């Protein structure tokens, strides 16, 4: 398989990538193969971010391009059987906080790596998290926070998961500007980060160990 598409994505050539994906999909190329090539591009972007070569802005732009790719391929995916997801993730910014930038980037990066992501949005009630966890039985639950008024709702959601017996069935992650190891301890999470790629790496490591 050619790496041209993957490398165009790595070089953030938005119009080139989206044009090529559209052409390939319309000419009957296997949408899963196209998606896989773009995923390889996203993996390189992630590697470059972790090595310090790329910055968050570049990862965000790559994620936007990848979202565009998925959107072009969506109508063509009905004809193919999608591969089994690597794992399932529920993401949310909880009640009191409306910031979604970090969460959106993590969601796209996880999707690019083959995870099934259920993004509940922002200002989400803890009970809504519980309902979604009951429904999809995820491997990971992730909370994003940029302001401290989300601490209480993250703790509440975590406690709801414990009370319902679902907490031990998933890993709980927290991330975002105001989170620290102390916040992780406070809400009883398994993992905390300020870095979207660290979150993706954590999921890959944990899922690999299952």
């Amino acid at each position, binding site marked *: 398989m050619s790496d041209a598409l993957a490398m165009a994505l790595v070089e*953030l050539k*938005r119009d080139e990538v989206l044009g090529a994906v559209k052409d390939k999909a319309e000419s009957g190329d296997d949408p899963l193969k196209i998606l896989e090539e773009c995923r390889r591009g996203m993996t390189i972007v992630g590697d470059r971010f972790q090595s310090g070569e*790329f*910055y*968050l*802005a*570049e990862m*965000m*732009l790559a994620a*936007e391009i990848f979202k565009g790719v998925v959107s072009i391929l969506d109508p063509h995916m009905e004809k193919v059987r999608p591969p089994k997801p690597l794992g399932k993730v529920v993401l949310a910014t909880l*009640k*009191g*906080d*409306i*910031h979604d*930038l970090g969460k959106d980037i993590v969601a796209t990066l996880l999707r690019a790596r083959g995870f099934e992501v259920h993004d509940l949005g922002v*200002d989400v009630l803890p009970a809504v998290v519980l309902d979604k966890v009951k429904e999809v039985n995820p491997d990971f639950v992730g909370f994003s926070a940029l*302001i*401290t*008024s989300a*601490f*209480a709702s993250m703790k509440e959601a975590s406690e709801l998961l414990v009370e319902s017996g679902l907490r031990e069935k998933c890993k709980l992650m927290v991330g975002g*500007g*105001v*989170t*620290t190891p*102390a*916040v992780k301890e*406070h809400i009883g999470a398994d993992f905390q980060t*300020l870095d979207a790629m660290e979150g993706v790496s954590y999921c890959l490591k944990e899922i690999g160990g299952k």
Partner: protein
Amino acid sequence: MVKETMTSEERLMAAISLEKPDRVPIAINLDTAPAARLLGLNSWEVVSQGFGPQLDVVLQVFDEYGGWDGVGGLLPPDLFPVSGMRAKPPSEGSPENQVLEGEVWKPEEYDLLVEVGWQRFVNEQLVFRVSDMTKAEEIAELGSEWMGFLVRFVEEVKKRGAQPYGIMPNVHPFFWMSLTRSMVKFTEDLYYRPDVVERALKAIVPEWTRFAIELSKGMNSKIFFFAEERAGCFFYPMKIFERFWWPYTVEIVDALWSEGIVSLFHLDQCWDQNIPYFKQLPKGSAIIDLDGTTDIFAAKEVLGGHLCIGGDVHPSLLCLGKPEEVEAYCKRLIDEVGRDGGLILGVGCSVPYEAKPENLRAFIETGKNYVPW
């Protein structure tokens, strides 16, 4: 209590001038929501009563906690539209002021921004997209109400022997573009239409700088506050910083400094890689206020003896830590960053909504009583 030999103004100016004050000056950004919470009030009820009560709760906290030197950080949500931003005012389920970020204007409007300038672009276009206002008179009325509020803010703070720590919550032109275009769209602009962004910055920065100088002079303030959360290395590579932020920042600081006004940089997120650039600014011309994400101790190594540093007790420590942990961190800041002067003790960004009262007291008391020189 140590014997104080300086006024708050003298203490702050000594730190800015990189001299040793009688004790470390303390500057606190405190917005309505955490102030109301510290007093056991509902932020959404206070905000709904207008500018006056929003200032009152901040002043009440100041009085109840024994006061401090620099007072800043008040950010009434009614004012967001005047900058072209949509606010999400406090509510019962969401008690803090927040910006509802979105693409308020489109890329094809850069030309209009360049043509009419920053203030006209906001006042004639953006305000009406992000608020219920429909007439220019309403903007003028809000502006007039705000100026009256600012005058009272300055009077009340000075009456208490303290100093306004920056006059008005302003954002750097780069950050303004990012907030009003939205983070993702503005980043696309920077990478896919850089010349257009550059032309806009060249057009609006002089106007923005004149506004900053006029406002500071009008309020008789020697410190001009402006926030920038996005231009640092947490988000952007140096090539973006060097082309779209640094030259305009130098222009702003030089213009303010030539009028005797100190630039107060409110730098949220990580700026570790950008810190050395600030050494190019004139000695004593700026305060680099950090939020607990940038390594303040490394910043001191680079900027010590050249620029004053502010910060940086992390919100998480104030919310979840113990008073003795807050005290220990403040002492470390004073020992390591303030040892030769040049530190203004502050909270990271602003007092967090969930701050424990005992931690805020520990922060203030340590600043007032710990003088290792």
